[in-house]
């Protein structure tokens, strides 16, 4: 496959744009969010998968945004999800809620409603009983913010 000069430039520009957006998403996490994440994981590197964060793509009212998380786990006394925390990067304080599960929970799934100040990434992190950490992120567009006033 050969490119002429014009095509090569277009491909390069596309690649650059992709790299920039990717990096922006990766680094958008404010210092507070990173700190909150570190406090929760204890330094373990979060992996992807097993955890699903469900929130609307567009939230008209930032005062009540439904959010639910579920984690794949057998939920037995030996192997279960210890806790799941939800963080909102763009809020004045990133912590939203932390759920603590036990083997008696049956499933590691919970829902609640949260406030979002502006359009931002919402992060859910699950900590398993064996110490491994899983993470999922979702961007929620907020029409009217839910803080201050």
């Amino acid at each position, binding site marked *: 496959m050969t490119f002429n000069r014009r095509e090569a430039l277009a491909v390069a520009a596309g690649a650059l744009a992709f790299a920039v957006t990717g990096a922006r998403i990766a680094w958008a996490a404010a210092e507070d969010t990173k700190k909150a994440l570190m406090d929760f994981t204890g330094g373990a590197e979060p992996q992807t998968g097993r955890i699903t964060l469900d929130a609307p793509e567009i939230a008209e009212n930032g*005062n*009540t*945004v439904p959010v*639910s998380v579920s984690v794949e786990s057998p*939920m037995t006394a030996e192997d279960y999800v210890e806790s799941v925390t939800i963080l*909102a990067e763009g*809020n*004045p*304080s990133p*912590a*939203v*809620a*932390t*759920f*603590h*599960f*036990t*083997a*008696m*929970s*049956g*499933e590691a*799934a*919970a*829902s*609640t*409603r*949260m*406030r*979002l100040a502006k359009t931002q990434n919402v992060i859910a992190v699950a900590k398993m009983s064996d110490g491994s950490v899983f993470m999922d992120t979702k961007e929620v567009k907020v029409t009217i913010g*839910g*803080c*201050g*006033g």
Partner: protein
Amino acid sequence: MAKVKPRVKLPKKAEKGEIVTIKTLISHPMESGQRKDKSGNVIPRQIINSFKCEFNGKPVFACDMDPAISANPYLEFTAKVEESGTFAFTWVDDDGSVYTTEEKITVE
């Protein structure tokens, strides 16, 4: 403050080993501490900061809540029931108040 009223919804009956969904709602303003009143003073934070659910005295589910939880906090979670018994629900307010309610379930 307006009266805080906890509400819980769960099935009355379940089969042994069934996973039931429990929905809870409690009326509470969840004042975030971010808002200002008309004269520009910050309204102090007052939220429900934790919730827990126990079944026959054993922990099932708990939640730490932060100011980013909406007013009238709603929580939905699951529990696996192996025997008849009582679910006890406890909410703790920033001012130290504790709100509780109980709900029975029968396993057939």
